[in-house]
């Protein structure tokens, strides 16, 4: 399984983005995960537990939002859910299409950061 590599990449991205947003400890990572990303949610969560320990980010939580496969259906003229990952066709009219609007996501959408400030009075 490659979920451990993915979890490590995830923590790298989170650390980099935390820096880009003024630093701070990462308390939570919000991830969008599509069925066609090749990554399984449950396996990623277990891998994430291992990875966060090795990166010294034990308190960081991972919140996964699983996105549906959505297709741009030419017949229904607009976004439609796919019937299933085994049937990449419009759930409404059954037209097969590879015009994917979503389903491949593997992306960080938000993070919770904590700032620790020393009080001015000391």
């Amino acid at each position: 399984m490659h979920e451990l590599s993915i979890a490590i990449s995830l923590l790298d991205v989170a650390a980099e983005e935390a820096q880009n947003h003024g630093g701070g400890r990462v308390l939570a990572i919000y991830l969008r995960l599509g069925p066609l990303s090749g990554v399984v949610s449950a396996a990623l969560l277990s891998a994430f537990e291992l990875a966060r320990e090795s990166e010294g980010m034990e308190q960081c939580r991972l919140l996964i939002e699983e996105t549906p496969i959505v297709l741009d259906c030419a017949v229904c003229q607009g976004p439609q859910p796919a019937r299933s990952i085994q049937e990449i066709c419009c759930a409404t009219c059954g037209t097969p299409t590879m015009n994917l609007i979503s389903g491949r996501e593997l992306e960080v959408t938000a993070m919770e950061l904590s700032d620790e400030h020393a009080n001015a009075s000391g």
Partner: protein
Amino acid sequence: MSTQTRLVEVRQKVLKQNDVTARALRDRFHDAGIFVVSLVSSPGSGKTAFLEQLLTLVRKRHRTAALVGDLATDNDAVRLARSSVPVKQIVTGTVCHLEAEMVKSAMEGWLPDHVEVLFIENVGNLVCPSSYDLGENLRLVLMSVTEGEDKPLKYPTIFNTADVAVITKIDLAAAVEFDSAAAHKSIQAVRPGMRIFELSSKSGAGMPALLDFIESRIAEARESRSAKAAQQASAPVAV
């Protein structure tokens, strides 16, 4: 000490680093005129036998080279070297797939000059390679007639992310009562419109059709390259 928490919006792909490296590789291949074909499949689907045949045939028309990924051993590279094209093994150790960075470092100081076609054989695995772009022009997914017609339904993502499906070992089709129509139906269900080739690496049946297809894609890539070059040559006219 006081602690404040804040929520920040981010929009970043987890595999950003791989995507950046793959894009750089793709540009580099494009500029050097190298057409790159990658192969993914489960272990034992006949990937190496297929590649051995393919190398022997493609090298007659183009300068060809191959990178082969494996968890351990360089058996495949040794076997493929018999086709007398430059072959390099990428031993991935515990990693179950190739990443763009591995391709990039394998090429350092190895990729011979004037190569026109580079084949990349991924580690035998139908799950993990699907997430990683390697900078290839064409990704072939292989399944053999012995694996069952519903293989694509069990591993939809790898079929969905590949460009072309190759059904191998068709010389064994009758013996295993392979239902070609059912296999095609499974492939089309998970990847509508996918091109499918059926062939035997052993007898060579079906190889010419695939070769013609690859040849046409090489020609297309060349055209787009010369169009881009022509555009660049005529573009910088400031008015």
